[in-house]
């Protein structure tokens, strides 16, 4: 038992002094230093890749890079214009395919049947799918689209990327919807919204920044994928034609092809293409963040 009513000596004012002499202060300072050092260390890989890309690819960063077709073996000059357009097109197709499915499925999981068997099954499948080797997504699109249509195409490439994007979009959208406070839902229902109106007018807008973040993560991953495009979109040394059902070039496949080329010029173009790809991913990221921050309730 501690006797609370015993008179205690009056503490000295000096006890309040700050100093590294205290065990607690020393420990805290040491941990802060360690945490800071780790943070810097964590940035080393990213920064060194970036520095390398700028160093090796930067010299070829001219208008020609965006306007010219890839150089043939042994030729000088050239660019990645067609591959950039192809990547943009296929990522757009993949987004158009995966976002409606992913977000609507997430709405079901979060709002309408969170405890149903179907929801449990969908969640499980999405989690497995998110760990799927990307080659398998390509194989799926090869069987489902390339064999069915008889040609390599942007559509097949887009479908392969969509399979990769879907689980990320779905699972992050579900979390974002679940994070919307209960009182927002109650406000909507209390105003006489049907469940669909409540989701559409109140819950989904509130979850939009989170949903967008998920879409951007998925886009960033899809833009850099090579394996699923190798046997769905293939490649092409020419500009895209009006016919979408033909082989389509992409930055990722171009980098894959050219980086192991014996020709110095092609290797340089591969470096420049990598820089363009990273810049593209970073730009979409920044754009999405800005948009999300702006549309978030203030």
């Amino acid at each position, binding site marked *: 038992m501690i006797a609370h009513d015993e008179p205690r000596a009056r503490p000295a004012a000096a006890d309040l002094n700050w100093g590294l002499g205290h065990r607690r202060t020393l420990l805290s300072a040491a941990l802060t230093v360690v945490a800071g050092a780790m943070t810097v260390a964590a940035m080393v890989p990213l920064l060194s890749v970036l520095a390398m890309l700028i160093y090796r690819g930067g010299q070829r960063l001219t208008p020609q890079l965006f306007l010219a077709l890839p150089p043939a073996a042994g030729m000088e000059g050239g660019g990645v214009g067609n591959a950039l357009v192809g990547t943009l097109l296929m990522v757009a197709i993949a987004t158009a395919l995966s976002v409606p499915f992913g977000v609507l499925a997430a709405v079901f999981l979060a709002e309408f049947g969170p*405890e149903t068997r179907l929801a449990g099954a969908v969640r499980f499948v999405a989690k497995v799918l998110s760990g799927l080797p990307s080659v398998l997504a390509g194989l799926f699109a090869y069987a489902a689209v390339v064999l069915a249509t008889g040609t390599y195409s942007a559509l097949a490439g887009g479908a392969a990327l969509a399979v990769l994007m879907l689980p990320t979009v779905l699972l992050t959208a579900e979390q974002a919807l679940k994070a919307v406070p209960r*009182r*927002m*839902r*109650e*406000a*909507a*229902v*209390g*105003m*006489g*919204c*049907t469940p669909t*109106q409540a989701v559409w*007018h*109140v819950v989904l*807008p*509130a979850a939009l920044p989170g949903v967008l973040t998920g879409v951007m993560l998925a886009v960033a991953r899809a833009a850099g994928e090579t394996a699923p495009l190798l046997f769905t979109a293939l490649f092409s040394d020419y500009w895209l034609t009006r016919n979408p059902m033909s082989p389509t070039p992409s930055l990722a496949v171009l980098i894959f092809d050219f980086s192991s080329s014996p020709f110095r010029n092609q290797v340089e173009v591969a470096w420049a293409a990598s820089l363009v790809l990273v810049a593209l991913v970073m730009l979409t990221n920044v754009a999405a963040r800005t948009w999300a921050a702006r549309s978030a*309730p*203030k």
Partner: protein
Amino acid sequence: MSQAEALAAPPALYTPHAAPRATDAAVELRLKSLHYGDFRAVRDVNLTIRRNAVTALIGPSGCGKSTVLRCINRMNDLVRGFRLDGEVRFRGRDIYDKAVDPVAVRRAIGMVFQQPNPFAMSVARNVTFGLKLNGVRDHLNERVEQALRGAALWDEVKDHLNKSALSLSGGQQQRLCIARAIATQPEVILMDEPCSAIDPIATLKIEELMTALKAKYTIVIVTHNLQQARRVADDTAFLYVDRSAGGRTGYLVESGPTAEFFANPREKPTQDYVAGAFG
């Protein structure tokens, strides 16, 4: 005339629903029991809520005031495992009847929550939200002004109608929620401790508001503050917790006109509660 048609008929923005008669019942509660899963939260609430009056529900924490209030517009339908045994009569029928659409009930019986919960939209769009749900698209500006005046908020926000509602103070947000609720001209407005999250001056404003609003609406308010019940309520109902048989089941002890209720409580629990609260 459907509610949408009634709302669409300008310029009489507020059509009185019926001539106020002191004994006219807006809602009648005939609740035998309310369950959350296996837990019986409330039993035996028989209460008549008079039209164009303010009815206060009081009682200790956990006695089921919110549960009873949320039965009146079927908000409890959102809670998985909630079951109601009994009736809630409104416009001459039981709103828990299979043929009744809970969405239609909630459009006729509005609600203001304990925590102000305006939508993350502009002030004006918060008010027009319910109107648009009801298919009303004309005279929106007048209707917004009318609703905001009705909630004693117009003077404070008239120059910031396009500002985010979330930038208002807590008390202003709560009055915006009241404006949002009255914009669609419901018959009944339910308020669950509407003043518990706001300061005394804003509380005073909302209390004055309730007194003004009862000319057009029927109001049911849950409050922990007995002084508040005394100030604003025409009728007061007291719920208490029955701990016999190991449960914690709330029930209606007594109800009546406020003055009489506080002057001569008939039941022992009421006497103790009122005496305890007033020392």
